[in-house]
């Protein structure tokens, strides 16, 4: 397959003080890929994702977006971020705006779209995540699952080339997890390029095209979901998965 490479991480490391969180990470994602990053808490998954969006500055190494190194000085970080969406564990919806405004503000202020046009596209994405009836609600009036679906619509409204999910279902109860995962599944089927940090193993197994297993700040193993989940080569992967699959 010769699909275009969207993002490539090259020898990326991140340290907080003396604490090494990520060590020499290398991997790449092509257009249409759904990559799931799994691993124990504290293994550096979220930090890796935040480095991709420059919410954390990598200590060493490069991140190439369509071949351009975005960790260099003089890169317009805001412009880069407008092409790479992010969905957070704690939703981070703007508390001072309604659901609709949350999905319009970026289009109007960053993409400089006309208001009517922004509204139309915001509505269509809210429709897609099943939140269209709630356009007038404020985030504080919504449940966790509803907030996360709005957050996904907000990210989609920027029409990103790549969408990052940082444990999108970890703060939700099982029923809400289902409604958010359904939306994500739909996006995967439509061919959106996604990188998902998750603890939902069944989702990673069924939906992703590529799985990365991280342990202690390094990529311990990566491959097709079938290979990782059914024929893991690294004993650490076996051990990690056995804990999840037992229940």
């Amino acid at each position, binding site marked *: 397959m010769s699909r275009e490479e969207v993002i490539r991480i090259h020898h990326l490391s991140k340290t907080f003080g003396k604490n090494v969180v990520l060590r020499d990470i290398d991997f790449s994602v092509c257009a249409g890929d759904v990559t799931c990053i799994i691993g124990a808490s504290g293994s550096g998954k979220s930090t890796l994702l935040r480095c991709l*969006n420059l*919410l954390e*500055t990598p200590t060493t190494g490069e991140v190439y977006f369509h071949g351009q190194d975005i960790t260099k*000085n003089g890169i317009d970080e*805001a*412009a*880069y*971020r*407008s*092409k790479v*969406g*992010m969905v*957070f564990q*704690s*939703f*981070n*919806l*703007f*508390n*001072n705006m*309604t659901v609709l405004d949350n999905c319009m*503000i*970026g289009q109007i*202020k*960053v*993409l400089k779209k006309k208001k009517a046009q922004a509204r139309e596209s915001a509505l269509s994405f809210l429709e897609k995540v099943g939140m*269209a*009836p*709630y*356009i*007038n*609600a*404020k985030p504080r*009036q919504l449940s966790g699952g509803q907030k996360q679906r709005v*957050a996904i619509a*907000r*990210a989609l409204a*920027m029409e990103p080339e790549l969408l990052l999910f940082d444990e999108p279902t970890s703060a939700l109860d099982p029923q809400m997890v289902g409604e958010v995962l359904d939306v994500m599944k739909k996006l995967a089927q439509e061919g959106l390029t996604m990188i998902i940090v998750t603890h939902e193993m069944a989702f990673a197994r069924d939906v992703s095209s590529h799985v990365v297993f991280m342990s202690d700040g390094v990529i311990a193993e990566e491959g097709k979901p079938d290979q990782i989940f059914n024929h893991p080569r690294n004993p650490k992967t076996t051990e990690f998965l056995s804990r999840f699959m037992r229940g």
Partner: protein
Amino acid sequence: MPQDFLGRIWYILDNNWMSFLTGAVNTMIIAIVSTLIGCVIGFAVGLVQTIPLNKKDNPLKKGVLYLVRLILNIYVEVFRGTPMMAQAMFIYFGSSAVFGINMSMWFAAFFIVSINTGAYMAETVRGGILSIDPGQTEGAKAIGMNHVQTMTYVILPQALRNIMPQIGNNLVINIKDTCVLSTIGIVELTYTTRSVSGALYTYFEAFSIAMVIYFILTFACSRLLRMWEKRMDGSDNYDLATTDTLAHTSGLYKYTGREEERD
């Protein structure tokens, strides 16, 4: 002059109501205008204090910012740390004696109260900005907003809401503290009360009136601001928007009891 307390109060009011009114109006003008200017100063200083610095930023920007912050810190500490009455004397009489600057009394009044309020507001605004969940900033950054956009559309509206009680506090304090301006000759409420009481040696009565007026002014302001806060919070409810007007979203249907009537 009447012999009983209430009679004397009535007598003073009857003869001097115009003075009290002028004093109260001047007090309110200085307090409101200076609080507004002070808020602007406070927001400006608070914003500069919270500009994030990145390792990648060029040294010139870092240097300039460091210097500006140093000056602003000195401003805040000096004006917070010295009495406003001393500042009023120092600035109004001092500037004409030493530098030959003759500022008008009114300009001096607005200047002194504004700059004091600004010094307090600077720290309040900084606190207000820091109190907003960092997730809000990250959410804004993640959709490609720059620092100015993030501040303007996401952080400041929320910070403003959070510091509204403190702005009200400052207004109330300013209404009372304008009394120190009587030392430089501003005809505000305390000044007029002193003239009235001095003329007839009726300190107790005149200042009773002044205190009641002060209390009415501050209480009215704090209630008005509380109402404004409520309006900022907006409605607790929201309407569900359905594209299909024939379909009732569950929970919206109002039972009218008409079916029973039909039976």
